[in-house]
C-alpha cells in the first residue's frame, strides 16, 4: 500500500535505529498456558493489534460517517481472526513510523497495515501468509487515457509514493519524470492540479482515492502481497493466526469481507482458488463513496455538517494537547529551577553535570528525545506509558531552556540583595526563596511565556508515540477529507485558544510582580 517500504523518510530511519535498539530488548519468553503468547494483552481475552488509522482508506481508518468509529477491510479481517482465536480484537492507533518499533516493544501482538511481504521487511518481523493480493495501477485524469502502459509513461511526469514497489518499477523501466511523494493525498492533489501526468499506485488506494474526473487505465501491473506482521520471537502466535486465516479463506469469510469493500480481485481468486461470484452488494464501498460525496462536497450544508462533526474530535485533541503541555510545563519549571540554582550556587562537579545536561538536551532534537524515552528506555527496563513518556520528554527538554532562562534571571539580581539577606541572618535557602527567586522570577516571566507557547506547539511531536493530540487530529481529518484549509483554521484556533490564557496569566503575573521593582542599588 502507500509507503509500504518501512523506512522511507528521515523519521523512518530514526525508527530503524529505535527498532534495532528495541530488538536488543529481549521479550521474556512466556511459560505458555496457551500455545502462544499475546504481547500487550490486558487480560485473557484481549488481542491488541496496531495500525496507522490516519487517512488509511480502505485499510483501517476513521469512519467519516461516524467519527470515532474505526472501520476498513483490515479492521473487518481482524474481527474475523479474533473471533476464531476466541479473543476480543483491540485496535491500537500508532503512527506508521512507530508501528514496528511498537511491535518490538511488546505494546501489541501484531501489525496489519498493508505491509508488503518482501525479503527486506521479513528481516525485521515475522509475516503471516498473505491476506490480500493486488497490483499496481495507472491512474490519469480523464482525457489522458493513452498513458495506459509503463512504456507510454516515458517522457511524462509520473507520481508515486516514495520507496514503494511502484517506484521501483518505474525506475526499472527507465521512466525519467518520476516524482515521489510521502503522502498519497499530496500525490492525488498534484494529479488534479496537473503537476503530474499519471500516478502509479496500489489498486485499493487508486480505487478509493480517485475522484470522478480520474480514470484507471491499462492492465494491473505486478503482484503485491500483504501480510500481518508479528514479533520475530513469536512464531506460535503467527501460526495460530495463519490457521485462522486459512479457515476464513476456505469458508468464504475473507471473500465476503473483500466483496463488501469492492476489493475482491482476480488475483485473489487465483490465490484462494475461490472462483465463486458473490451476489452480495459492495455495501461498505457504496457507503464510503456516498458519505464522501456528501461530506467532502463544498456545499454550505456539507461543510456545516463536516465541521460540526469535527468539533468534538478537535476538542478531544485539544484536551490531550493541553494536558501534556501543562504537565510538561510544571515539570520544566521545577527541574529548570533546580538546574539553574545548581549551576549558580552549586559545587563545581554539580555545576559541570548540570551544565552538561543543559548542553546535551539543547543540542539534540526533541523528536529524537521523545523516541529515545519511549522506545529506547525499555532497553534499560524503564517502560513508560505514552502519556508519561510524552510529558517527561517535553518536560525534561524544556527544563534545559528554563534553566538557562532562570540562570539569567538569577544573574540579574544584584549581589547586594543576597548580602543584605545574609546580614539579616537568613540562611542561603531563605535568601533564595524570599529575596532572590521572587526578583529573578520577574525578569524571567516574559521569556517563560514565550517558552510555554513554544511548548504547546512542540507538544505536537508526541504524536509519534501514539498520542492523538491536536496536530495528529488535524493530519487525520484534513487528509481524510482533503480539507486542509477549514480543518487548519479550526485546529489553529484551538491552539490559539489554549495559548491565550497562558499569555494572559503571564501578563497578570508580570504586572503584579513588576509593581514597584526599582533600583534599590546602583
Amino acid at each position, binding site marked *: 500500500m502507500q509507503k509500504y517500504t518501512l523506512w522511507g523518510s528521515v523519521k523512518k530511519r530514526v525508527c530503524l535505529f529505535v527498532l534495532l535498539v528495541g530488538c536488543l530488548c529481549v521479550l521474556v519468553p512466556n511459560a505458555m498456558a496457551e500455545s502462544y503468547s499475546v504481547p500487550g494483552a490486558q487480560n485473557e481475552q484481549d488481542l491488541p493489534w496496531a495500525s496507522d488509522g490516519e487517512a488509511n482508506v480502505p485499510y483501517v481508518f476513521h469512519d467519516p460517517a461516524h467519527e470515532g468509529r474505526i472501520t476498513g477491510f483490515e479492521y473487518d479481517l481482524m474481527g474475523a481472526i479474533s473471533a476464531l482465536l476466541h479473543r476480543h480484537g483491540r485496535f491500537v492507533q500508532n503512527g506508521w513510523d512507530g508501528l514496528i518499533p511498537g511491535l518490538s516493544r511488546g505494546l501489541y501482538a501484531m501489525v496489519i497495515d498493508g505491509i508488503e511481504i518482501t525479503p527486506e521487511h521479513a528481516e525485521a518481523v515475522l509475516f503471516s501468509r498473505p491476506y490480500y493480493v493486488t497490483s499496481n495501477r495507472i491512474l490519469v485524469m480523464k482525457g489522458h487515457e493513452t498513458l495506459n502502459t509503463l512504456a507510454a509513461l516515458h517522457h511524462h511526469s509520473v507520481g508515486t509514493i516514495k520507496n514503494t514497489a511502484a517506484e521501483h518499477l518505474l525506475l526499472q523501466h527507465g521512466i525519467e519524470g518520476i516524482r515521489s511523494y510521502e503522502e498519497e493525498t499530496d500525490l492525488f492533489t498534484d494529479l488534479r492540479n496537473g503537476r503530474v501526468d499519471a500516478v502509479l499506485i496500489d489498486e485499493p488506494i487508486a480505487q478509493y482515492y480517485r475522484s470522478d474526473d480520474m480514470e484507471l487505465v491499462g492492465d494491473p501491473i505486478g503482484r503485491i502481497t500483504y501480510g500481518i506482521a508479528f514479533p520475530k520471537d513469536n512464531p506460535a502466535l503467527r501460526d495460530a493466526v495463519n490457521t485462522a486465516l486459512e479457515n476464513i479463506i476456505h469458508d468464504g469469510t475473507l471473500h465476503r469481507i473483500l466483496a463488501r469493500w469492492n476489493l475482491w480481485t482476480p488475483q485473489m481468486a487465483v490465490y484462494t482458488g475461490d472462483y465463486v461470484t458473490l451476489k452480495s452488494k459492495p455495501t461498505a464501498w457504496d457507503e464510503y463513496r456516498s458519505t464522501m460525496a456528501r461530506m467532502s462536497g463544498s456545499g454550505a450544508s456539507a461543510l456545516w455538517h463536516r465541521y460540526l462533526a469535527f468539533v468534538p474530535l478537535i476538542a478531544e485533541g485539544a484536551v490531550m494537547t493541553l494536558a501534556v503541555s501543562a504537565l510538561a510545563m510544571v515539570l520544566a519549571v521545577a527541574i529548570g529551577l533546580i538546574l539553574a540554582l545548581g549551576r549558580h550556587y552549586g559545587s563545581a562537579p554539580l555545576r559541570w553535570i548540570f551544565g552538561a545536561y543543559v548542553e546535551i538536551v539543547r543540542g539534540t532534537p526533541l523528536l529524537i528525545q521523545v523516541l529515545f524515552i519511549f522506545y529506547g528506555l525499555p532497553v534499560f527496563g524503564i517502560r513508560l506509558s505514552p502519556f508519561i513518556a510524552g510529558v517527561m520528554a517535553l518536560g525534561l527538554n524544556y527544563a534545559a531552556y528554563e534553566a538557562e532562562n532562570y540562570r539569567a534571571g538569577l544573574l540579574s539580581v544584584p549581589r547586594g540583595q543576597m548580602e543584605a539577606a545574609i546580614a*539579616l541572618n537568613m540562611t542561603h535557602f531563605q535568601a533564595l526563596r524570599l529575596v532572590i527567586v521572587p526578583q529573578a522570577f520577574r525578569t524571567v516571566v516574559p521569556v517563560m511565556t514565550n517558552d510555554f507557547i513554544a511548548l504547546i506547539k512542540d507538544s505536537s511531536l508526541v504524536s509519534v508515540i501514539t498520542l492523538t493530540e491536536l496536530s495528529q487530529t488535524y493530519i487525520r481529518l484534513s487528509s481524510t477529507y482533503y480539507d486542509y484549509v477549514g480543518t487548519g483554521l479550526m485546529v489553529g484556533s484551538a491552539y490559539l485558544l489554549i495559548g491565550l490564557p497562558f499569555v494572559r496569566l503571564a501578563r497578570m503575573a508580570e504586572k503584579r510582580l513588576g509593581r514597584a521593582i526599582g533600583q534599590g542599588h546602583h
Partner: protein
Amino acid sequence: MLQATDIAKSFGDHEVLRGISLDVERGELISLIGPSGCGKSTFLRCLNFLEHPDAGRVCIEGVTLESNKHWHRKDEAQAHRLRAHVGMVFQSFNLFPHRNVLDNVMMAPLQVKKMEYEKARAIASELLEKVGLATVKNRYPDRLSGGQKQRAAIARALAMKPSVMLYDEPTSALDPELSEEVLSVMRALDEEGMTQIVVTHDMRFARAASDRVLYLEEGQIVESGDPDVMFVHPREARTRRFLRTLL
C-alpha cells in the same frame, strides 16, 4: 563587647587586611576612615563574615568565630549565631524591591526569628515611626528618596535587635541634605547607647559624632583616637597627609 583580633584577608595576591585588631566598648560609635581601597569596608564585612577572613578571630557578645582558609558547615552555624547580634547597613541600601517598606522590616523577624505576625508588625511599625517613615511604610522602595531608603534599611537591621550596628558608607550615595536625615538617626541611636561602627567619608560626621576614629591605610590601622585630638593634631604623617587632602 566586640573584639576583632588579627584579621587578615587577601584577594588573590593583593593583601587587603594585614592583621587588624579592634576592641569595641558597649555604646561606642567608631568611625573608620581612610583612602579608597585601604580595606576599611572589607574589615567591616569581615566582622559579620559577609567576607571570610583568611585569618583572625571575631568575638561578639561572647560568640567567637575563628577564621581560616577552610570554611566548614559548623563555621557557618557559628556565623549564624554571631550575626544574630549584628545589624548591617549598606551604601546601596539593598532594600528588597519586591516588598513594601513594612514587609522589608518584618521579613527577617518573621522568617528568621519565627516571630508572630502581630508582634513583628508592632515592632516594625514602631521602628519606622522612630526613623520617621510611618507615613510611607506601605510604599515600595522605588517610591522612596535615598534618605528614606537608608532609614528604612536601618529600621530593617534594628528589627533583629542587634547589639552592634555596622554601616558601610551609609551616606556616600546621598546628597548632603538627605545624608543629614540618616546621620541624625545614627546620632539618636548613639544617644540610646547603641554600639555602632561606621565606615565613612564624611569627616564632619566622623569628627562630631564619633567616640573614636580609626585611620586605616594599606590594610593596617595607622592611628586611632579621640576625634577632636586626631583631626586637630594627628600623630602620624600619613594621617596628616590624608586629612589635609580632605579638609
